[in-house]
């Protein structure tokens, strides 16, 4: 149908075409040869451009799919890449930053067995069962027994590398008294706006969906509908919600993590941004990495996953990814982490519950979001 527009464009150009036809017979036969050559050259050049050069397949080059903020210059990515490349000697780490976290799973599913990725980094507990069912992942070989997690870990495939609690972060200057529960948020005047993420593309977005579901159960759909007037916009990923919109003052509250204020306290040295403690409790997210079964670099991939939970890599988690590390960093843990809110109740669905419910819960959310 796009082409109907093109037909119209044609009409407009047909006017200039009439003049083309008129002048056609005036063109001399000869003297067009150099130009003809040029046109052929143009064709050949294009044909050349079409042959997409395939990337060289290096056995020591590890391709890792992750989300944007992980690889940002202030994120943990650069330090982890440098540290691991130093440890392995001759390998290179290629982070591929996808535009959102849940997008990582979609992408490897879309690419199927021909995916160029060796490791996926940035899925979470909620997506584990779905990712495992795809059959694209394989055992990590990482010993997770000594990790300091708030839950017991019993997956052989997924390697947890940090965790945190979903929370609304607010700007104390724009919003001195933030709501203290979902009920209060819904009941607040309509001009209290929040920015959230799309549960289909972003793990925090999915986290909020599950958080609401675990608080409200069967009432979640109507609560989503009641929340609609407060939602300024739904972004695809966390980065644009937090950096581009929230920190630019577009809304006083954004869906993020209870740990986010630590970054502002340590790096910006300000207490301006705080997480709002909700009496409903907070939803736990454990972020995970995994090895792809089709990867020809299994050994290097496992080596990387082991490095990821080691003290060296974990040291860049608290301020790089602004999450709790999964190993005890002792004095290396920034002091601001003691000043963060601690959830009154920890909420979490099992990966299997999320797998079975996700589709219909997302539909519920879509319906509530389109109904308004």
């Amino acid at each position, binding site marked *: *149908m*796009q*082409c*109907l*527009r*093109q*037909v*119209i*464009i*044609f*009409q*407009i*150009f047909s006017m*200039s*075409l009439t*003049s*083309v*036809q008129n*002048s*056609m017979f005036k*063109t001399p*036969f000869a003297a*067009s040869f150099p*130009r*003809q050559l*040029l*046109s052929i050259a*143009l064709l050949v050049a*294009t*044909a050349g*451009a*079409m042959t*997409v050069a*395939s990337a060289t397949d290096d056995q020591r080059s590890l391709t890792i799919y992750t989300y944007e903020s992980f690889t940002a210059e202030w994120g943990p990515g650069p330090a982890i890449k440098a540290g691991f490349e130093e440890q392995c000697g001759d390998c290179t780490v290629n982070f591929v*930053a996808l*535009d959102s976290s849940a*997008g990582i*799973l*979609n992408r490897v*599913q*879309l*690419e199927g067995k*021909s*995916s*160029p990725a060796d490791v996926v980094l940035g899925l979470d507990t909620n997506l584990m069962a779905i990712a495992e069912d795809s059959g694209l992942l394989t055992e990590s070989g990482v010993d997770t027994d000594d990790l300091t997690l708030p839950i017991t870990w019993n997956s052989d495939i997924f390697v947890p590398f940090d965790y945190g609690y979903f929370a609304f972060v607010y700007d104390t200057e724009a919003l001195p008294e933030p709501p203290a529960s979902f009920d209060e948020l819904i009941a607040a005047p309509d001009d209290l706006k929040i920015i959230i993420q*799309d549960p*289909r593309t972003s793990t925090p977005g999915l986290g909020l969906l599950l958080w609401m579901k675990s608080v409200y159960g069967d009432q979640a759909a109507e609560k989503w509908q009641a929340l609609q007037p407060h*939602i300024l*916009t*739904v972004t*695809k990923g966390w980065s*644009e919600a937090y950096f581009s*919109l929230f920190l630019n003052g577009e809304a006083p509250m954004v869906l993020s993590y209870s740990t986010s204020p630590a970054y502002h306290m340590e790096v910006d040295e300000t207490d301006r941004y705080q997480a709002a403690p909700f009496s409903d409790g907070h939803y736990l997210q454990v972020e995970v990495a995994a090895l792809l079964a089709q990867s020809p670099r299994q050994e290097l991939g496992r080596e990387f996953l082991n490095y990821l939970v080691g003290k060296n890599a974990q040291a860049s988690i608290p301020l790089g990814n602004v999450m709790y590390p999964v190993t005890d960093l002792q004095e290396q843990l920034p002091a601001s982490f003691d000043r963060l809110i601690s959830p009154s109740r920890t909420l979490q669905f099992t990966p299997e519950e999320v797998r079975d419910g996700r589709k219909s819960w997302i*539909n519920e959310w*879509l*319906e509530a*979001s*389109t*109904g*308004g």
Partner: protein
Amino acid sequence: MSLRWPWWASATVALALIAAMTLLPLGAMLREAGVIDWKAVTNDTYLQRVIRFSLYQAFASTALALLSAIPVALALSHKPSFPGRALIVSLFSLSLVIPTIVAIFGIVAVFGRTGWLSHILALVDIEPLPFYGLPGILIAHVFFNMPLAARILLNSLESIPADNWRLCRQLGMSPWAIFRHLEWHRMKHQLPALALLIFTLCFTSFAIVMTLGGGPRSTTIEVAIYQALRFDFDITLAVALACIQLLICLSLMALSTLLRHDNTMGFDIYKAPLKINSGTHENNPRQGLWPGAAWHMTHAGVLLFSTALVVTPLLALLVSSFNSKTLSVLADTTTLSALSNTLAVALSAACLSVALGLALLQSTRYLRIRLARERVGQWVQLTGNIILVLPPLVLGTGLFLLLRPLADVFSIALTLVVMINSLMALPFVLRILDAPMMNAAHAQDRLLRSLGIQGWNRWRHIDWPQLRKPLALALALAATLAAGDLSAIALFGSERVRTLPLLLYQRMGSYRLEEAAVTAGILLLSCLCLFAIIQWIVGGREHARTR
């Protein structure tokens, strides 16, 4: 050239290619559709809402575009010697050729939350108006379709014979009476088909809804197909949506064929000559029919307002593309690789499209002239228009299903984008080349045959000099359209392969507006350059001027 190809060879190759690029993906899609639980699909309230919203926004956009186009067309018709009138009319066609996503950026720069309009409103203490969602979609659709509708309506108004105007003056008819008895009478024949055309365009609108929709609240079927594939990895849903989209598009096409069939009611989008009087009438028959300063002010006001609507977004784009990020974006490797991808896609798609078009026409020319099988020839040519009923995202979904088991579709993204875009440009290429090809043959075929000039010699000495200009135009236009495409690249693009439209979309999506502005500027400039340079190289020195 002793080697002689049979006359049907080129069309057979072209038809085989077109069939492979359309029927195979369509087949793959329908096979997948066989396993869909249609009852569940039709009962899905989300889908119902998406379909309802698609129809609703298309309806509202059509109504707004037509309602605003009527006064503009009237004003242009009443004022044939309005200063800058020719320029305004040319500007109205500009909004049709610049890439959609570029125009969208301009619209955001004017109407967005931090746009020019908000700044002006802030001066008088008015809160910025809501923009993302339905308002933004409507503004953008009016931006694109009002000029189109105004030009077509103006065309019908200009076809009113001068005698009628003189008669109006002799009878002393009031402006209202003229409108009712003469002008409205003319326009109303165009309106049904025109409305249907705009409705179809808005109904399948992709780039606008995806960029300005602002979350799931405003989603059309076209965007929902994209989301089902790229967000949810829900192939079944994507196929179901694609089937629904195809069905609705086919019925809209059938409806428009019905409307076009009847000559009095029909709005023939192919044949309507868009001849615009230049405005230098010495003997203007409309002189004095709308007397007084009030009418003059109204006409001037309508024209200024409508011009402002079209010009300000482009102006805002130009102004904002010079900012603190300009140099860093220009030096950015992402931008540069996107630029080279865009050029590669544009040139390849243009060449493929023109090659397919020439191959088809070469054979149909033989069919129509030497074998005198006019009808058969036209039917063969019609196959080139197959994409008209196949929205690019439906085709893309089919290609995706077809190729996924065989290869990593993201690594062959550019090839797929080239394929889809060459098909999208084909109807248009055929239309440009059809008449010149036939003319060239009609005039000289017998002579050439008796002289035994054929094959390469015939092409080199007879066809090429006559066809180079239409060829240049076809190439240039196909290249420009492909360079601005977002549908295909949105489906197949990734961080590995980006074109400028995709990069612009992503930068807008992450609200990096300064970088987006520069990207939009580069895209606009490359489209203009492509257009001019191709015409210069292929078309010869005295190339067709762009309008």
